[in-house]
């Protein structure tokens, strides 16, 4: 079965650079959630999109922005990177239009900021 795809899987950037993380949902999933997970921490919700509109916002820094495109994939744009942004970034997708509650997680992007 198709799963959530995230790219790149690993990314190394320097401070003050920018990064773009991509998430491709499971086919027919209309909702994307972004989470950040620091070392030894639980995933923290950043932002979500439903049918290409932002649906909820969590602890996302102003330096970050995201959007969902017409094909339902989503991109998380991160600017002015800081050392503390080093983390695993997961997206999860769901079929909310089908009233599904379960979120399916991707394999994550490991971002390292040097």
């Amino acid at each position, binding site marked *: 079965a198709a799963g959530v795809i995230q790219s790149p899987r690993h990314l190394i950037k320097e401070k003050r650079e920018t990064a773009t993380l991509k998430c491709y949902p499971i086919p027919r999933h209309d*909702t994307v*959630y972004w989470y950040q997970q620091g070392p*030894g921490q639980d995933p923290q*919700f950043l932002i*979500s999109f439903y049918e290409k509109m932002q649906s909820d916002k969590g602890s996302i820094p102003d330096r970050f922005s995201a959007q969902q495109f017409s094909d339902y994939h989503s991109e998380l744009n991160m600017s002015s990177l800081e050392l503390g942004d080093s983390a695993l970034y997961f997206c999860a997708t769901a079929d*909310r239009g089908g009233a599904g*509650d*379960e979120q399916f*997680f991707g394999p994550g992007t490991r971002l390292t900021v040097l």
Partner: protein
Amino acid sequence: GESVGLHLPTLSVQEGDNSIINCAYSNSASDYFIWYKQESGKGPQFIIDIRSNMDKRQGQRVTVLLNKTVKHLSLQIAATQPGDSAVYFCAEKPSGGSNYKLTFGKGTLLTVNP
């Protein structure tokens, strides 16, 4: 035990024993709870879920118990196997509106000794 800083609560069991992982959730308005398993370097993987109108749900080798009175969730794994070694997170979703984001609890590291 309580997690402090980067230290996860840990549970070490022998192969074949039963494991019980506990989670205290914070929002009495949450109506949907999920247990996720996360192996090193991978995204959270759905194990089992339960709605607030239930107090017990069973899956294959796993059982989730929900005590709404004390806002406590537990995951029981029967006949624990080495492949069960991972970090386990509980997550909750508040009821109502468009708030579908998940709030994760602190993970528990399960180590299964052969």
